[in-house]
């Protein structure tokens, strides 16, 4: 799995961080998403899929192909 985030769309909601804190963080100054693991371990995949689904700005894109 490969994650890309669109910083211009991100509204700093932090929903992704609540769901997958090992994969996502937010910048301290403006709250924009920081990708900690662009290619997360298998164990994180379910949480990452949920984070992408819940992101209110549709800013998280996943490509599931290895």
């Amino acid at each position: 799995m490969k994650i890309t985030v669109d910083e211009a769309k991100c509204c700093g909601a932090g929903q992704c961080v609540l769901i997958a804190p090992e994969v996502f963080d937010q910048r301290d100054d403006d709250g924009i998403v920081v990708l900690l693991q662009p290619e997360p371990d298998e164990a994180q995949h379910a949480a990452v899929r949920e984070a992408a689904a819940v992101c209110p700005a549709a800013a998280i894109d996943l490509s599931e192909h290895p």
Partner: protein
Amino acid sequence: MTSPGSILIVGASAAGLSTAEALRRHGYQGRLTFLDAEPHLPYDRPPLSKQLLSGAWEPPRVQLRGQAQLDALHAEFVLGEPAVALDPAERAVTTVSGRVLRGDVVVIATGLTPLRLPGQDHLEGVHVLRALDDALALRHALSAGTRLVVVGEGVLGAEIAATARTLNLEVTLAGMGGTLLNDQLGQVIGAMLAEKHAERGVRLRLGVAIEELTGAAGRVTGVRPASGEFLPADMVVVAIGSRPATGWLEGSGLPLGDGVECDSRCRAAEGVYAVGDVASFQHEGLGRRLRLENRTNATEQAQVVAANILGADRPYTPIPYFWTDQYDVKIQAHGLPSAAAKVTIADGDVAQGRFTALYQEGGQVTAVLGWNMPKQARLLRQQVLGAWQDTPRLATA
């Protein structure tokens, strides 16, 4: 419960689309059909009053998903066709052209309809903002005119005023509330926002009832508040609130109050669910009914609805969350801020334009607000509001 064989989702926007995606993610393999009144594939609404209205983004940018992602859903989209009736027992939806669509499960995700002022439909130059086509029409009008009056001092009206000011229009913002966003965020924060707008050159007319739109030769010429003062305009935006889009459900026998009244599982009747802005649900954490009009609710509630359709029996107990962007201010609100709460600054500095604030009622923290401090507001939310949310996350459940 066995998995349904077919699911019909009425309303192909944030809430409807998220429900479908969650269903597929959790292994649902049956038929999926979307029905929507609008001709567009699912798009996102928050940018309509911000990046799209300002011209920073063009319509393709607000699409919620690309074609490949939509294809992967294996869903049928019936677009440009409003639903006009639902038979809950048969789970049959009739469309305006007389077509009947059925599902083993029906999901109601029809959002809101903007309120209008009497007579506005007969005047050119009067706008509402809910859909992409509304936003494009308003954007075109803003590029052609010079004087805008926004009626409505809530979040939508304030965002439109801010965007129009950044486009250098003459903007008047008029509304009944004593300050901006008073109902949503209360007097303290509302007054700070009002100051921001005044600083940026918006003429504020607050605490006035708008009685009348004036027109000549079928075109709007201005607005006349109850105070008697005349506010001239080339175009007017009416942003005085919305009602749940439940007109098509009248006569269905479903409980309709402030929206489709669901239980704590977001279920309105056997095999009928509601999700997003249109859905009123019983919040078990708060012990009362709630209906939320925000973007995060649309996707979060969709996760629970999808799980329950597939047999999970899960209550929906969110910590509400919304954001608004106006000029260089990004506000994030977690919980239930209200005009009745006492507001104290928790962190940061008001003068510097970066702070977090706590809302308290009866000694309880009811909301956390960030003013250009999104991350800090989220961290604070976890400390003070965590107890509300006892829904286990889907990914770990």
